[in-house]
């Protein structure tokens, strides 16, 4: 196998990881449309969903081009089964209450913001360009979710309890962020993608002060659930895709 082809396989897999996480999380956020706790927050949740759909489209479009088999963003989004998805497990967890949503957004953005910041220096110019746009978006999500987690943690007794519970529920999916798949290892060595291990410190540096200010107990993030990067998911993804793909799959080859 020649080197270029090997890198292309890895690039394809990596673009899918980024794209699938954004796509699946945007789907969960879009479930809030019309259900936000205030009108302003309904709009903010849609904004974040829209940012992530935008990122997903760029990444999947690029994945399709790298793969070179004629699959576009929709073929990749709508015609793959759950075991071909490469998203982080945290993204596919059910919407939950507003505390779950905000804690998840905090964790995800807390990880992706430094990830994209580092990816901006990628030797792959397309990934670097996607990262430049996405990094700004993730910085906004991080700020927005952080403000809410502080408000909820330090709000009422009920909001504190709910947020601590959300934190403990979502914490088990954080360790996966920092696992290094073979694809990420090779791309990191080639200067194309960040080494996930290097993102742990920036993640903790941005998350910990927020959780402390929110008067929440910081979970350990040790152990937990893995497998998303390799296509091994939980029970929820298949249902999520079932809903997302139902119409597209009912009309093979149709244009929308």
């Amino acid at each position, binding site marked *: 196998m020649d080197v270029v082809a090997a890198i292309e396989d890895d690039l394809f897999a990596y673009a899918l990881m980024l794209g699938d996480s954004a*796509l699946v999380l945007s*789907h969960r956020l*879009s*479930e809030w*449309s*019309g*259900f*936000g*706790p*205030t*009108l*302003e*927050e*309904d*709009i903010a949740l*849609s*904004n974040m*969903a*829209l940012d992530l*759909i*935008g990122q*997903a*489209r760029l990444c*999947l479009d690029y994945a399709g081009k790298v793969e070179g088999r004629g699959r576009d*963003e*929709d073929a990749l*989004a*709508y015609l793959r089964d759950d075991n071909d998805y490469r998203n982080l497990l945290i993204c596919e967890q059910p919407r939950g*209450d*507003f505390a779950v949503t905000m804690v998840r957004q905090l964790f995800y953005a807390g990880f992706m913001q430094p990830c994209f910041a580092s990816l901006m220096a990628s030797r792959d110019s397309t990934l670097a360009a996607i990262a430049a746009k996405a990094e700004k978006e993730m910085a906004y999500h991080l700020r927005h979710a952080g403000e809410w987690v*502080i*408000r*909820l943690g*330090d*709000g*009422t007794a*009920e*909001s504190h309890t*709910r947020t601590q519970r959300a934190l403990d529920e979502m914490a088990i999916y954080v360790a996966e962020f920092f696992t290094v798949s073979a694809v990420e290892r090779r791309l990191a060595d080639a200067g194309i993608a960040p080494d996930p291990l290097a993102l742990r410190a920036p993640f903790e540096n941005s998350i910990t002060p927020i959780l402390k200010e929110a008067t929440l107990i910081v979970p350990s993030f040790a152990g937990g659930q893995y497998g998303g990067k390799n296509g091994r998911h939980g029970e929820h993804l298949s249902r999520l895709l079932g*809903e*997302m793909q*139902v*119409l*597209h799959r009912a*009309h093979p*080859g*149709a*244009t*929308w």
Partner: protein
Amino acid sequence: MYAQALDQKDRSPVIAEDPVRLERFEARCTAEDKIEPKDWMPDAYRRTLIRQISQHAHSEIIGMQPEGNWVTRAPSLRRKSILLSKIQDEAGHGLYLYSAAETLGVSREELSEQLLSGKAKYSSIFNYSTLTWADMGAVGWLVDGAAIMNQIPLCRCSYGPYARAMIRICKEESFHQRQGFEIMHTLAKGTVAQKAMAQDALNRWWWPCLMMFGPPDQASQHSDTSMRWKIKRFSNDELRQKFIDAMVPQARFLGLDIPDPELRFNEESGHWQTGAIDWSEFRRVLAGDGPCNRQRMRVRRQAEDEGIWVRDAARAFAAKRAARRQAAAIAAE
């Protein structure tokens, strides 16, 4: 879309207004002056506007539901993104309109309470179901299209804050209509199944959309004062006719049939003439018996209820922070 408010009878006691002020006010309306929140206005003007603006706002909010029904099943990522931002716009419209209503001395909480208690109405069109993806096309094309017909004249409404909100809203509504038309166009030029889906959606939405303009002129409780006060500028039938005349050629361009065997072009008047509208259906849906009246309200209440703890937390936190700042300021003295 929102003309219905003007056809409801104002049941509040009539207040005898100071004739001098009233005359001056009416002269300003006639001169197309803008009335601003701090200006004197007749009580009935204020009440009519609150009723109309809040009904409009409620319609934007309830109107998020029928389209929200398809967000998670949108058939392409591009469509999903457009649909989600359209629904987001509607939430924004609700916000502008609640703010405009607040300038008349009523709070958003009061207005929201009136919606949840069923005291305030929203446009009946949103009590219909969205059964297929083509309904996303039909809603944008026809429902937003009818809303624009109603709302463009409101950009010149005598009440300044409402007129200004409508200018912003109308810009976005025309994008909504275009995306709806584009969905219909794609479906109509698509597979046999897609074209059938588009036709079915037109069949279901056409008549309810004609009803959006409210009862026929001879049956509606007349709104001479609304006309004089430059809140309303065209009658229900005039707006409905404008809508029909605009939509018939568009349906033909799409290659879709308007579900009305009596539809014909009247050479004399230069207008398209439709068959009789079934006003008993309109009254039934308005009275609460549409396909989704109960569901829309249930979902709205559920969303409100599930947000209570969040809003409470935000309030509690804001109070704590203010207290801490005050304590810090005192300590610094």
